[in-house]
């Protein structure tokens, strides 16, 4: 029987990505309307004659969008085209009010770039070539009902940057690593939020397979509607297997556009848009060509912040983190920013800061559906909490308790500590009394422990902790409990 393993050994996946990133500008690509369509409270309120395509309306280029395109191009190691020309891409569809989309055809903002990705498992660096990046306007949003469709033009005209890679990806892991890296870079540049759920950042995969060792390319399919990395992984995997089965049966893969069905977890041919359309591109006469001179390039280059790769190296060198640790941190710009400020403010060891940040702090931030950028638990307050912990004034349990409280209030950890009298109870007398009391009330269990049931020690420890609301110093309790139990034995 031909298993998927055998097929995977015989065939090599060939994957290219097409990325559509909505640019984080205030206004739309070709008019002054508000571009933040996803936060609009009602459909069709951020519109004007231009983005609704009314007769007589004209486009005017959003300079900021162009600058963002240039910035991304530089970050992706591309050639920046000195002369940018916008073109009309002609086709009919209800979400395209003018009957053409203003895009870029033969003079895109950036071309011939690359990005290095490392698959965590392999530790191999692969250079993925980027064919081009160009600017265009987004279409309106269609919602389909049974007998009709509704069109919301809030999104029509929002600036998009389309990035196309060469089909240099050959595994799902590298594809995800690449997608993740692009997303991170866009967030670092502050040109896109990386939100895939709401379609602010969209990925499409072009997938084909070929015999290993061969350079001959086979027909590829295009998969749309991948709104999470999980979907991307599953969809590409499904598609590869589907194509492997087809080819191993000596059939041919049909060139089609597919959608990923989240529920049934299969790729489905999409109807609607015409295939292999002749878009009849020609230069947009309403937008004169834009020239990007050396001064403008320099100015934009200077606006680029420290990028993930260099940050990863610096974190590793300056903070003594392993490359993997650094990469995990650096992948989330806001978290990395938070980390750096915490390190500056705190006197705790780096590994403590790191593990608390990656561990407890990240869990709570996710639980509370906030972010490292938005949370009012500032890195300064976080730093002070960690210092309380590392100084030994509070234990693990208490630290976590205060951490949660810090999300609810603006108070400092020291003040909370004082207020709630949460200093570690190390007073031997107080603790001894409590322990004696506990042993008395649980005498049969104490005897069981002495009889050999060693795990009960932890249980007693837990009970002391509970009774003291976690404030007891575990090392002191351990000593006292030990001596109390041996005393008990003597009784």
């Amino acid at each position, binding site marked *: 029987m031909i298993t998927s393993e055998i097929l995977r050994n015989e065939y090599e996946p060939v994957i290219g990505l097409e990325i559509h990133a909505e640019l984080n500008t205030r206004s739309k690509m070709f008019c002054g309307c508000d571009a933040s369509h996803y936060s609009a409270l009602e459909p069709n309120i951020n519109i004007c004659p231009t983005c609704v395509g009314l007769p007589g309306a004209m486009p005017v280029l959003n300079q900021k969008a162009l600058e963002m395109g240039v910035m991304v191009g530089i970050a992706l190691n591309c050639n920046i085209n000195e002369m940018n020309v916008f073109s009309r891409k002609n086709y009919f569809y209800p979400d395209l009010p*003018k*009957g053409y989309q203003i895009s870029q055809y033969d003079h895109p903002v950036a071309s011939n770039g690359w990005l290095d990705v490392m698959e965590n498992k392999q530790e191999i660096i692969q250079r993925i070539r980027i064919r081009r990046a160009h600017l265009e306007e987004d279409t309106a949003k269609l919602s389909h009902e049974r007998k009709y469709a509704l069109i919301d033009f809030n999104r029509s005209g929002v600036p998009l940057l389309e990035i196309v890679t060469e089909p240099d990806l050959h595994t799902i892991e590298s594809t995800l690593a690449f997608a993740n890296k692009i997303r991170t870079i866009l967030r670092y540049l502050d040109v896109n939020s990386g939100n895939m759920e709401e379609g602010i950042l969209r990925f499409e995969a072009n997938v084909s397979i070929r015999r290993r060792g061969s350079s001959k390319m086979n027909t590829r399919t295009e998969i749309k509607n991948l709104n999470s990395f999980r979907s991307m992984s599953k969809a590409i995997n499904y598609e590869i297997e589907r194509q492997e089965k087809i080819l191993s049966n000596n059939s041919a893969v049909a060139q089609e556009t597919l959608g990923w069905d989240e529920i049934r977890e299969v790729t489905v041919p999409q109807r609607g848009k015409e295939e292999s359309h002749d878009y009849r591109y020609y230069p947009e*006469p309403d937008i004169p060509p834009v020239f990007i001179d050396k001064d403008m390039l320099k100015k934009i280059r200077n606006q680029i912040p420290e990028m993930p790769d260099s940050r990863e190296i610096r974190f590793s060198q300056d903070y003594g983190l392993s490359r993997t640790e650094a990469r995990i941190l650096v992948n989330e710009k806001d978290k990395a920013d938070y980390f750096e400020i915490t390190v500056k403010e705190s006197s705790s060891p780096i590994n403590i800061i790191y593990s608390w940040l990656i561990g407890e702090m990240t869990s709570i931030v996710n639980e509370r559906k906030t972010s490292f950028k938005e949370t009012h638990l500032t890195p300064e307050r976080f730093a002070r909490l960690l210092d309380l912990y590392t100084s030994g004034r509070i234990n693990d349990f208490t630290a976590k308790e205060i951490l949660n409280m810090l999300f609810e209030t603006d108070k400092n950890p020291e003040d909370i500590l004082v207020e709630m009298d949460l200093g570690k109870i190390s007073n031997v007398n107080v603790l001894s009394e409590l322990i004696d009391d506990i042993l008395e009330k649980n005498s049969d269990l104490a005897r069981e422990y002495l009889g050999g049931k060693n795990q009960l020690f932890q249980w007693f420890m837990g009970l002391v902790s509970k009774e003291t609301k976690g404030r007891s110093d575990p090392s002191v309790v351990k000593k006292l409990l030990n001596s109390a139990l041996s005393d008990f034995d003597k009784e």
Partner: protein
Amino acid sequence: MDLRKLTIQEAHKLLINKKISSYELTLEYLARIKEIDPIINSYITISEEHALTIAKKADDRIARNLNVTPLTGIPYSLKDCFSTKKIRTTCGSKILEDYLPSYNATVVKILESHGSVLLGKQNMDEFGMGSSCENSAFFNTKNPWYLDRIPGGSSGGSAAGLSAGLSTFAIGEDTGGSIRMPAGFCNLVGLKPTYGLVSRYGHIALVSSFDCVGPMTKDVFDCAIVLEQIAGNDPLDGTSLKNEIPSYTKKLVSPVKGMRLGIPKEYYQLGMDIGVEKSIQEAIDVFREIGMEIVEISLPNTEAALPVYYLILFAEASANLARFDGIRFSGNPEKDFDSVMDMIIQTRNEGFGEEVKRRIMLGAYVLSAGYYDAYYLKAQKVRTLIQGDFNNAFKECDLLLAPINPSTAFKIGEKVDDPLQMYLSDIFVVAANPAGVPALALPCGFYNDLPVGMQLIGNHSSEEILLRAGYAYQQETDWHKRQPSI
């Protein structure tokens, strides 16, 4: 008062001297429109209520002397290709027969800020595609000089109406002679400005690279008055020039002695009616008499102008008209369709006229894969040669003199069966638009009792020179003072 003769200058004097109010003047125009327009059919929509409201406001403004300009309270008309808020805008097409725009074109906004009184929207060849006004989906407009003749196109309604005394001035649009041709056939002054001088925002585009918004008036002075106000940079139009606008009226009365007038020899080789040629020759004599130097120049690529113009027109028009899909405006919302594509196809099939459909198909063809290089790209390349011709010519002269049309106005129906014949008669007017240069149409005589027009063509942003020369010419001649007998 003879509304056929009334100029902006005269009307303005009457208004500020309180000899008549804008309201009264507007009523007179509306009355004459009711009387005469059923004969010539120049208006598609008459905005009576709107006009009277604006007129009242203008009167108030004049009474209080509040920022009164030469255009305040002056009744005017618009070719129906300009977006007018809440006033029907059809572009001469069935597909827009019920379209009520939600915004005003910039030129409309400007005139409204002056308090000019909009009388209505005028007939045109559908979407500007035509040279005779016979391609309107609604009706033919008749030339007031001879009712069996075409008024010219595509701003035919504006020319016919203005010439018959149904407005004091009109705003038209010239893509390939669409202001100049009707001005020539109806004995009017019409200016195609430099590309980008007047904002196109709100003008329903035909050929985005060629379209120019411009005034149509009874004399050159009026033309200068209007141009001064409507020219200027518009941030809503990305192709709008950023030049400072001179005061055209102040510079009008200046000597023209020593100006070099170029006569393009190729134009005269192409042939024209005897009467037209005679009138042009007489005009040359006048210019010589007033002190201009006559120079023969060459525009070697003249013959290429027609194919260059039409190929680019087809291509750009096909895209500009793609938005008429029946989804957001026009079309029949009550009807049931099998699919969206079905709706789009049916709407366009029923809503567009023959000539429009013809040009859209040609445009799609010219841009299609495999043909783009041979047609569209080639046309754009040859276009640079035409621009080069003008550049070279203007090294040897300050402006050019050319006919507008090889004949006078032809009969209605004479050329409808042969679209190619129609295209060919555009030969003298189509070169200016691909080059972006301005051209001023002026009356220069009569032939068989029909008006003969000529055009002065200048270098980019040379409207000042054209208007000066035109004004000087009109001091020596009175062709422009003649009226049709309607």
